[in-house]
């Protein structure tokens, strides 16, 4: 099907063996001589004024090497969005959630560090709490931050087209609501940090982060260090899903302790701390009014959303924008109004999580489409097909879709899941506990703009041919957090240079190697992929020009293919070059022979001619989006889209929902690695299913999490997983390398609504609160599911 040797195949991941055999080094695996262990003092109260912090008893404990509070750390504000820097390394005036960090200790062992934490005396004056996101903005509520009047961290008011016109054109208008709960990323590896200061005074931090570059900037800013003296290295990372995309107090405090003691310092979160730190999925309260014409054409959407973001802004501004902007697609929708409010409450801060901001909004909108289809007497998939956008169209909020396999994806799941047959069968036994539902999704393929305002390239890649010939080293700041970006970079390089994957080594995730904005917004394959391709082509050009000059042929008649330098214009006389190479390798066996120069020979000879063969690549998106306020969020060089069909069985007495099968199709433009694309789709289905059916952070009345562990915070087990079918759609994105675009987040978008729609099909009742626990199903069944 494709003309590629390596791209579009199921090549084995470059890190597979290391991870399977346990050889891969995660941050917590690193040990250093004289290493200290850090512990953090977390606030036990959700909202209180700090009157006094007394660390004297902790400091006196034998084995304790340093105790730091805001007095040592300073109070430089930081955060994610420069417009909302509202955190300091340690709390100094107030604590704002149970878990807020007050102090840190470094000691010769972990036991001592923890003991010292308990010796720090803090006097608090308790303050009234704000725990309910819906009422947090009301007058008279206690205020968390001086800068957020009415606890309003960010609000968005958009109006595209004319919704009044849309109303007038509508045949049916309906309003629905959907609420969700805060959720956790539940990645396998808890956050871990190892910081040290080298003999030159450089701060080097190893961290299980998704975004070395942003973390480097925040460390330098908050610790007041020159940027070039701060180096962030990301070892193997066991998943992130968003919560690891920003700098944390654990990172800052560990660095501070390393600077203060001059010794390496490590901290690894307990699972409970993962929950306390959170920065995961917000709580959403969506209300949508949607109108549709008699022929099934969408006429308008009026969308209102409140986001409970916990104690700090984190990614929240982007979240509230994404919640609105990503409903611009994948359907033609001329009129859209959006009012979004992101409030702060005395709970752990929420941030970005897979499908950033858009997942619950998508769920409600797709439920609305099904309800409108039912009222119109149309098949839900037919209604969607009537409205899907095509490549070349622009949404009402000025997002341009340059490739778009939405129709193809929808038809693929319809046919593969035997939708027609099952709908008809379900129609007869409707509400008998078996149901089928469909939904679509739409997502960015890399954020159009960096988090801080800048003309910065979003990534650079530096590729170098080994001076001895044969091998190629790719250096990148990109963060492989398990999604497989190192493999993608290796495959692109091998493809371009006509060599095997084994000839390529990738070193990545190090801020000293190159700049890369990191693993978020599903950006790496498209953006770093571009830069990687450019770097490889640069290398190739240098090799070919060196050899062409020696052979006195035009460089454009030469190519690198299947491990050889090949001529496109008749046979070459390589004998002189071959002789030189053989002369260099007296005593070696297994030397090259035959009529063509090997890649190893070509690389070696090019080095002899030119010196180091180093190619560089870079990428930044072109200017994107409209000129309205907040237009930047949601822009992307390309958009992924997806469709899914879920089949469920509902126990009508206990309310227990079993997902029997999910069939999904995702348009990733072009699959660089087919197995990895399917893996992202399957992972998304699993994660979306957990969020739909089980996952919820639960709080008591004092703002404490009651289920801060993976025993009580439920994610699906292997036994819960249904059969998953992943169908790859390739629309060949003109702005992506080789036509590739995202799959990492987009594939999660249709999961929750397809399950919600299937449950309705199975039971005849609608659930308007996530997760869909058995109890909520039973309650809906008994009340008729209003």
């Amino acid at each position: 099907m494709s003309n590629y040797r390596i791209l579009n195949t199921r090549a084995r991941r470059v890190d597979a063996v290391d991870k399977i055999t346990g050889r891969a080094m995660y941050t917590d695996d690193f040990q250093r001589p004289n290493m200290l262990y850090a512990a953090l003092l977390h606030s036990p109260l959700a909202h209180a004024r700090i009157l006094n912090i007394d660390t004297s008893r902790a400091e006196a404990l034998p084995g304790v090497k340093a105790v730091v509070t805001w007095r040592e750390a300073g109070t430089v504000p930081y955060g994610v969005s420069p417009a909302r820097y509202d955190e300091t390394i340690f709390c100094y005036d107030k604590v704002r959630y149970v878990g807020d960090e007050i102090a840190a200790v470094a000691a010769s062992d972990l036991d001592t560090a923890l003991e010292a934490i308990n010796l720090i005396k803090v006097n608090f004056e308790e303050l009234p709490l704000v725990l309910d996101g819906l009422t947090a903005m009301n007058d008279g509520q206690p205020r968390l931050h001086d800068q957020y009047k009415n606890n309003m961290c960010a609000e968005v008011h958009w109006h595209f087209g004319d919704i009044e016109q849309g109303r007038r054109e509508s045949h049916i208008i309906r309003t629905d609501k959907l609420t969700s709960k805060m959720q956790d990323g539940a990645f396998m590896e808890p956050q871990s940090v190892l910081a040290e200061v080298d003999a030159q005074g450089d701060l080097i931090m190893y961290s299980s982060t998704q975004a070395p570059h942003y973390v480097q900037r925040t460390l330098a800013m908050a610790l007041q260090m020159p940027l070039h003296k701060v180096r962030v290295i990301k070892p193997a990372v066991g998943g992130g899903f968003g919560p690891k995309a920003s700098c944390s107090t654990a990172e800052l405090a560990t660095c501070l302790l390393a600077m203060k003691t001059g010794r390496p310092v490590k901290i690894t979160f307990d699972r409970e701390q993962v929950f306390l730190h959170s920065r995961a999925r917000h709580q959403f309260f969506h209300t949508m009014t949607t109108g549709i014409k008699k022929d099934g054409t969408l006429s308008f959407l009026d969308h209102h959303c409140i986001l409970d973001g916990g104690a700090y802004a984190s990614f929240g501004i982007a979240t509230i924008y994404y919640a609105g902007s990503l409903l611009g697609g994948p359907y033609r929708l001329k009129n859209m109004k959006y009012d979004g409010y992101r409030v702060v409450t005395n709970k752990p801060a929420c941030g970005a999580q897979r499908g950033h901001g858009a997942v619950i909004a998508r769920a409600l909108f797709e439920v609305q489409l099904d309800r409108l289809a039912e009222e119109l007497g149309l098949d839900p998939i037919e209604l969607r097909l009537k409205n899907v956008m095509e490549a070349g169209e622009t949404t009402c909020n000025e997002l341009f879709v340059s490739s778009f396999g939405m129709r193809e994806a929808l038809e693929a799941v319809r046919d593969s899941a035997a939708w027609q047959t099952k709908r008809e069968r379900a129609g007869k036994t409707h509400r008998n506990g078996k149901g089928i539902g469909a939904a679509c999704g739409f997502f960015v393929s890399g954020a159009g703009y960096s988090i801080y305002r800048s003309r910065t390239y979003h990534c650079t890649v530096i590729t170098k041919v080994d001076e001895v010939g044969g091998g190629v080293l790719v250096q990148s700041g990109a963060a492989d957090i398990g999604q497989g970006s190192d493999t993608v970079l290796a495959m692109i390089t091998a493809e371009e240079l006509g060599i095997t994957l084994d000839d390529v080594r990738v070193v990545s995730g190090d801020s000293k190697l190159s700049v890369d904005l990191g693993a978020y917004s599903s950006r790496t394959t498209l953006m770093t992929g571009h830069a990687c391709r450019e770097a490889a082509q640069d290398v190739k050009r240098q090799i070919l020009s060196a050899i062409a000059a020696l052979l006195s042929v035009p460089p454009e008649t030469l190519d690198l293919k299947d491990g050889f330098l090949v001529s496109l214009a008749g046979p070459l006389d390589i004998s002189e070059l071959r002789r030189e190479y053989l002369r260099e390798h007296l005593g070696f066996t297994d030397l090259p022979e035959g009529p063509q120069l090997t890649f190893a020979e070509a690389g070696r000879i090019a080095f002899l001619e030119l010196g180091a063969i180093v190619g560089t690549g870079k990428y930044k998106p072109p200017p994107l989006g409209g000129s309205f306020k907040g237009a930047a969020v949601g822009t992307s060089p390309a958009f992924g889209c997806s469709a899914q069909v879920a089949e469920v069985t509902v126990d009508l007495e206990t309310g227990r929902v079993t997902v029997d099968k999910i069939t999904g199709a995702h348009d990733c433009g072009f699959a660089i690695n087919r197995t990895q694309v399917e893996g992202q789709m399957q992972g998304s289905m699993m994660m979306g299913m957990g969020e739909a059916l089980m996952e919820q952070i639960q709080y008591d009345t004092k703002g404490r999490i009651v289920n801060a562990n993976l025993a009580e915070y439920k994610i699906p087990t292997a036994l819960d997983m249904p059969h998953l079918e992943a169908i790859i759609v390739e629309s060949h994105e003109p702005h992506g390398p080789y036509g590739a675009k995202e799959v990492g987040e987009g594939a999660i978008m249709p999961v929750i609504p397809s399950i919600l729609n299937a449950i309705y099909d199975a039971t005849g009742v609608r659930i308007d609160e996530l997760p869909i626990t058995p109890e909520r199903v039973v309650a809906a069944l008994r009340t008729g599911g209003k």
Partner: protein
Amino acid sequence: MILPRFDVLTPATVTEACALLAAHTAAGVRILAGGTDLLVELRRPIIPQHVPRCDGCPTHPEGAVFSTIDCTMWNSEPLMAAGGSVRAAVKPPAFLLSLHKLRDLRGLQKRTDGSLRVGACTTITDIERSRDIREGWTALAEGADNLGSPLVRNRGTVGGNIANARPAADTAVPTIALRATLVLRSTSGIRTIAAADFPTGPGKTIINPGEILTYIEYPAPAKYSGSAYHKLANRKALEISTVGVAVYLALETPGGPVADVSVALGAVGPKPLAAASVGPVLLGRIPDETAINDAARAAMEDARPIDDHRGSAWYRLQMVEVLTRRLLKTALARAEGKK
């Protein structure tokens, strides 16, 4: 997970275990079997567990303040205990008494009278894999099937699951329904107690300091009998039940009236409960649809559920009826040899 410091005692015989237990009671000792509950319970809290309240003293002239460390003049109850995952602050024991060397306490013995003696240190996996248990005491096998995950079942023991006395314990509920007797041993001898009378509240039992649960004895099932257990939860493994119900049902003859019935309820009260109201409704009746529905409704009267993060009292009560009805039917089919 970070554990507090403790020393481990490793007796080689039950007699020695009882002696060591008695000798260390004053210093603080807990019994370690599989450790799947105990070690989790002992893990070190991440955030300060006690925030005592001081209404004003020389060190806290500010008045009405809260401190993460002690003050000699606290004059009222702590403002809060525990943070993060809410759990009572437990004073870590100085000693753990490990039962792992007591081979006698691991394994099953089917006796000539048809009864079954199960050592308290028998693993959940051993229970799950026993053909005898699956045939004669099916509800127990089904409790074992549903407990935790394979890793937990390989370590966890039936004695530990019962003695830990959680209201939802997956083997305790069938053990009560199957009318087992527990054998407790101490330096002063042996005593036995009905499984239903053993737990007294969440994590609490009638066991005395110095006593070890050594055996669980399951009486022989009646000729035409069957039993079943069902755990209702949000996922298929690694769960604590929202509601768990176990049923034992015996018929006088196949197709005949109910000779004996016993129902136990999990997670709907402070401890696993015997549903005493079911017997009077069902005994002597032909177990038809109406009789079973009546019995299931009767079981609701014995439940005392509360609202918590796993489910509301309302939902749990409804599910007691649904599960009891379904399980009576399953047990009936088994009693009639239909499995």
